[in-house]
């Protein structure tokens, strides 16, 4: 509880800092109008007033904060839609994408991480290590494009982007086909890092004395590995996984862009290009809150996994 309260000034500081950074970036929300020779200084002044940009910065911030806390997140400058509507439209797509990634990564990372540690230096371990390092060091945009070219353009097995075939009625198979490539792109990269984490900490715990004790007691190897070693080895993984949680909301900037996935990442990127302050601040506020909460969650999970860790 006390830690929750401690998080509040932190969140406030983050929101002030992000507001300041947004305002300091050159261009501004009216830059997009400038290419038009008909756009005059009068038009600029009128729009600045309509969007409230002519007020002093502290007032702009406080009025945003006030309405934000009362649930009015404002309207996007470019789309004239409520920020909550804009987020609401993208969130399901991002949850679907990142949720699938989250589940798949966990499903594969734990068994692969554990088995490679147990069979250290085997051919299997070397193969997995090679693969994880390859994917870890592959930029997402490149991997994504590679998959598109291979499975979309060359083999024509899967669609090149989007969430569904436009104009067609809702179809689960169609949805899944659109999901495969973006999910594979993010999962392969994330899997690499998660497997590395788990393998490293498994190796460390397997060498510990209590594991030797467990073995000496005559426990089955399965029980030793899963109950005694894994529970302790999972602690570092918990941090990594807990920090994945905000991503469920924030989405994947690069991958969503490459695959034309209408999610939070693209919303954020588009808004950033247009300096659409209300949208950017809404997303930043939610994502920073989630990151702070995820850290708290990781701490709580530590306490469960390792009763020696107590916070005072």
């Amino acid at each position, binding site marked *: 509880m006390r830690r929750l309260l401690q998080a509040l000034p932190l969140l406030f500081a983050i929101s002030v800092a992000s507001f300041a950074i947004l305002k300091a970036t050159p261009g501004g929300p009216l830059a997009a109008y*400038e290419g038009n*020779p008909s756009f005059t200084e009068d038009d600029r002044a009128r729009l600045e007033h309509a969007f409230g940009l002519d007020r002093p910065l502290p007032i702009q911030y406080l009025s945003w904060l006030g309405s934000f806390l009362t649930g009015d997140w404002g309207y996007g400058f470019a789309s004239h839609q409520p920020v909550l509507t804009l987020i609401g439209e993208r969130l399901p797509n991002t949850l679907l994408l990142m949720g699938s990634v989250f589940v798949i990564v966990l499903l594969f990372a734990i068994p692969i991480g554990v088995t490679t540690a147990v069979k250290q230096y085997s051919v299997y371990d070397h193969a997995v290590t090679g693969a994880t390092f390859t994917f870890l060091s592959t930029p997402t945009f490149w991997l994504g494009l590679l998959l598109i070219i291979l499975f979309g353009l060359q083999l024509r097995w899967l669609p090149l982007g989007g969430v569904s075939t*436009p104009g067609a009625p809702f179809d689960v198979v169609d949805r899944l086909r659109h999901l495969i490539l973006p999910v594979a792109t993010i999962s392969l990269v994330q899997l690499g890092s998660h497997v590395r984490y788990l393998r490293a900490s498994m190796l460390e715990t397997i060498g510990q004395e209590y594991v030797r004790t467990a073995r000496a007691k005559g426990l089955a190897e399965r029980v030793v590995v899963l109950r005694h070693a894994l529970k302790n080895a999972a602690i570092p993984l918990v941090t990594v996984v807990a920090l994945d949680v905000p991503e469920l909301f924030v989405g994947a900037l690069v991958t969503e862009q490459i695959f034309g996935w209408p999610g939070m990442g693209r919303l954020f990127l588009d808004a950033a290009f247009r300096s659409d302050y209300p949208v950017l601040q809404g997303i930043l506020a939610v994502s920073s809150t989630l990151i702070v909460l995820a850290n708290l969650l990781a701490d709580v999970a530590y306490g469960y996994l390792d009763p020696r860790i107590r916070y005072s």
Partner: protein
Amino acid sequence: MAIAVLSLVLAACGQPAPGGGTSAAPSATVAATASPTRGGTAIVAIWQFPSTLAAHYANQTVTDIVNYGVIEGLAETNTNGEYIPTLATKVPTVANGGAKMTADGKKLDVTWELKPGIKWSDGDPLTSADIKYTWEIWMKDPKVNNRTGFSEIESVDLPNDLTAVVHYKSIYAPYPLNFFSLMPKHLLEKEADISKTDYVRRPLGTGPFKITEFKTDESITLEKNTNYRDAPDKPYLDKIIFKSVPSSQVGLAQLQAGEVHAMWNLTEAQTPDVEKTAGLALQVVPGPTVERIELNTAENKEYTDPNSVHPVLGDIEMRKALLYATPKQSIIDKLLFGKAKPGSSPVSQGWAAYKEPQEGYDPVKANATLDKAGWVKGSDGIRSKGGVRASLTYATTTGDQLRERVQQVLVDEWKAIGVEVKIQNQPSSVILSGSCTGKDPRKLGTFDLLMYASTPSIDPHSTILPRYHSKQIPTQADCSGQNYTRFKNPDADKAIEEAGSTLDIEKRKAAYAKVMKALNDAYVVIWMYDRANIDARVTGLQGWEANVWRRFTWDVQDWWLKK
């Protein structure tokens, strides 16, 4: 499908189709290639997604691409740059009595008559009250993009349901296109704030299609408008879906894979891919966009004094030499795949087009010009004169591959004639911000050479006045002008003022030609090339016609899909 086959058969039998729209053809084979079939869904890839479709808020090109099938105005432009009526019976002119200057020659009255029987796509009749309402909204709504033309209107009279008399407080020559997008009074008049209504995403129009679905960043679906004035003959298609693609590369890949039927705005570098794919066709239409390099004739410093002289570019011989050492044609051939034309003026299309070319590439002449003007080559091959080194900066938008390649070519070419050029690019959000507070170097005068593109509207006054009148040089006191080269010529000023005070097209054309000649004689701009609009489609999508002044969806009512 069945309807399409039926109409094919009917056409083949030499009978007019029930709607009377399709032209009768003598044989089935000819019918298949020449006579439109009905039905089907065309999918068009768009790699920008409209944030809004309300014409008075929008500032994206892609909004027009979608809206051309939905929203109409009183008149539009054909490919020759002539005004043609859309919802009006005729385009009012001085000759046909529709446009009248007041006795003192200072004001203008324009009478529009609507075609009878036109309905909005929801079935309500279109009346002259909608014309007046459109003007009112544009003036009243604080979030409207700009008020060009509308702010020149004093009042609108409505003698009857089909007639509106628009009273301009000035001689506003581009009046034919002022009402390019009519708004439905019956739907919107009760709304306090249109920006908070569904109209922002699903505007109501009188066009061949109506918007039935708007899925942000995914797709926009247009369905046949059964209340369209040419229904049931047109449109031929049942639906058009605008599908969001992440980039034009992916759009092209989807076109090649058959996932979409058409895409808009290809780069020149993408054209070889289309040309070598069977079943795809390119449409290269000359566009009004002109890529240019502007030469700053005043000192390169913040809020430069319009009367100061640039130490290097202030010398007209230096400016001439830079032009002579610019290989426009080979840049076009090699970097633009031959899909552009060498530029010659800011107005390359339409009735006021000025096509007198600038002098061609001749590095020998460039060197001779500089030698004669007293610019002497130093030991490093760079010229100087009176202690001033011929060293310039060259700016354009960062991250634009084509522009960066053009820069590399020109830096080498200019070095060869003894002029040192350093590239100093900035993001387009700064360099084209168009505002002094946004640190636009053109506005502040903090550049030597600056390369960018600009697209004039069909009436050249809005381009020529702010860009080439000497009173339009931006200063700290008044930053609104766009005379970025700091070009000053009293004869050109006079010609611009003359052109702005008459509706006589021939007089205006001659006046603008005078301005553009003076501009080229001063060598303050190198007109690089007139950029083409390049669109691509599958060959099965037919009925397209090119229009220089409008985007490729301007005639969607005539599109049809070959089965």
